[in-house]
């Protein structure tokens, strides 16, 4: 192991384990969580690994406290993470909102299983996509990433940390049970090839420092506890000094900035992988484990000469509106397989603005689509 604690090498590990290694490679040194299938392997791996790199792993009494703990750790100057699944994600919502309002960098991993409620503990789901977007009350913009393999669990966990540090907000990883529990080869690169970003610190002296005063990029430099700066952190609407100012005027300024720091940067944040999209008449839009099945289906259909492509959403939020809008102009239909009763499909429908039809292929959870499910739907438009 190198000094950085990064386990450079090739491994056959599952998505959860790869996520934990990605966190460590990103510089995460604090994990707080409560065990829950199918995310427990992340907590287990962090419990083993963090002490080796002088980090702290703590099992909290529940997910509410876990979320509170990682916010606190982040204000203490440490990159922090928690991991959970549906029921725990629901419990975290209140403090995720606190993280959004206080602009606290951290990473929350949700390995989705079948819901609602305790639902299907050991089986796959993708039904928390809208909860990730709108789960905590009030207006805010989120960043949510959707890995489709253990390697991507590693890569996107690093990406999630970097985005959280750049834009100062909790970033979500929406994995699913299949990807979390699936093992494949994962290549962990040497530490000098891993791109780590850390939050911008204030450059001025503590005198007259305004902790929530942002420059043109709308992201305020962040002073952490113990660095000599006076910082007041509250979930109430606050002014640039961090003090509560519950007026419409201050609220307008603050909430608009919280949203705009993401909205103005969507082109830098959003990643979509395109496969066979040129000259396609039908486009499959898929993410997470479902995108693997979609890729197989599209490959088979292409070998039969069907003009079909795949947009694999790596970033779910902010939603790739622009790209969907462009693609909609030249095709007959979007086919959207997802393991829920319609979530991303409605976003696709909204962005296509009636130019192309949107067909939802829902599954309620516990099973994944087969390539045949998707191929049949495509053939309705490309007989």
């Amino acid at each position, binding site marked *: 192991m190198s000094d950085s604690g990064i386990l450079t090498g*090739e*491994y*056959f590990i*599952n998505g959860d384990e790869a996520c934990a290694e990605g966190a460590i490679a990103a510089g995460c040194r604090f994990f707080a969580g409560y065990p829950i*299938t199918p995310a427990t392997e992340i907590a287990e791996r962090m419990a083993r690994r963090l002490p080796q790199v002088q980090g702290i792993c703590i099992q909290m009494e529940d997910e509410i406290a876990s979320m509170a703990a990682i916010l606190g750790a982040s204000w203490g100057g440490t990159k922090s993470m928690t991991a959970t699944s549906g029921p725990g994600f629901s419990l975290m919502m209140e403090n995720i909102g606190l993280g959004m309002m206080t602009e606290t960098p951290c990473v929350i991993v949700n390995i989705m299983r079948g819901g609602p409620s305790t639902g299907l*503990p*050991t*089986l796959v789901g993708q039904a928390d996509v809208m909860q990730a977007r709108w789960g905590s009350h009030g207006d805010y913009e989120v960043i949510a990433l959707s890995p489709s393999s253990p390697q991507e669990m590693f890569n996107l966990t690093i990406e999630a940390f970097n985005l959280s540090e750049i834009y100062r907000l909790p970033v979500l990883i929406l994995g699913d049970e*299949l990807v979390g*529990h*699936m*093992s*494949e*080869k994962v290549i962990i690169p040497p530490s000098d090839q891993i791109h780590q970003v850390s939050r911008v610190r204030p450059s001025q002296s503590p005198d007259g420092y305004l902790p929530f005063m942002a420059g043109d990029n709308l992201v305020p430099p962040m002073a952490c506890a113990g660095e000599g700066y006076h910082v007041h952190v509250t979930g109430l609407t606050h002014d640039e000094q961090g003090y509560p100012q519950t007026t419409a005027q201050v609220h307008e300024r603050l909430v608009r900035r919280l949203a705009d720091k993401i909205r103005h940067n969507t082109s830098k944040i959003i990643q979509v992988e395109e496969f066979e999209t040129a000259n396609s008449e039908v486009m499959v839009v898929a993410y997470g*484990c479902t995108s*693997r*099945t979609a*890729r*197989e289906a599209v*490959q088979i259909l292409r070998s039969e000469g069907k003009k079909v492509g795949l947009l694999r959403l790596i970033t779910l939020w902010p939603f790739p509106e622009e790209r969907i809008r462009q693609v909609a102009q030249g095709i007959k239909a979007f086919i959207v397989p997802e393991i829920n009763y319609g979530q991303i499909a409605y976003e696709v429908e909204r962005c296509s603005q009636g130019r192309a039809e949107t067909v939802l292929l829902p599954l309620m959870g516990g099973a*994944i689509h*087969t*390539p045949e499910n998707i191929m049949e739907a495509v053939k309705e438009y490309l007989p």
Partner: protein
Amino acid sequence: MNSTQKTEIRLAGFGGQGIILAGNILGKAASLYEQLQAVFTQSYGPEARGGACSADVIISGGAIYYPRVSLPQILVLMSEEAKSTYGRQMSDQAMVLIDEDLVQMDTVPEGCLLFKIPATRLAEKLGRKIVANIVMLGFITSVTKVVSYEAMKQALFDSIPSGTEELNLKAFEKGYEYGKQIKKQESESRSQNPE
């Protein structure tokens, strides 16, 4: 193995038999020690022990997208419940490997082959029933040749707690030799009774 050829393997038994670990070792052998691609997925219930569970491995020379096993070419059964849950799904020319003391099965569909081993009994003779899964891995290696002896051995050593190497290696060799004998008898009987 070329880039489109896929081998689907399903190991099934009850929770606690080490089915998941066996699947993981098999996937690791292919992925890290054979220059092949492998995907390992699992299916299990909320019980800590008991209940039917399965470990699915797909091995290919090229990228694997759809990660589920649909009709395994190699089906390994280690409990009656696993047989009733998974025992009928297999490809046309599947190899079916069973623990003959735990699974009652005398025939397989035409075109398929049945291979029996008393894996748990052999493990008990080695002193620890817990290594029945490793006996079965040895058996899988020699009967199906889906990965090499060396690759499987390396993956095995990567995956077990230190201090247990000797017992696990014995278990692995036991199953491997048992499989070799069976294959030998099979080829002898074939040469004596040409069809």
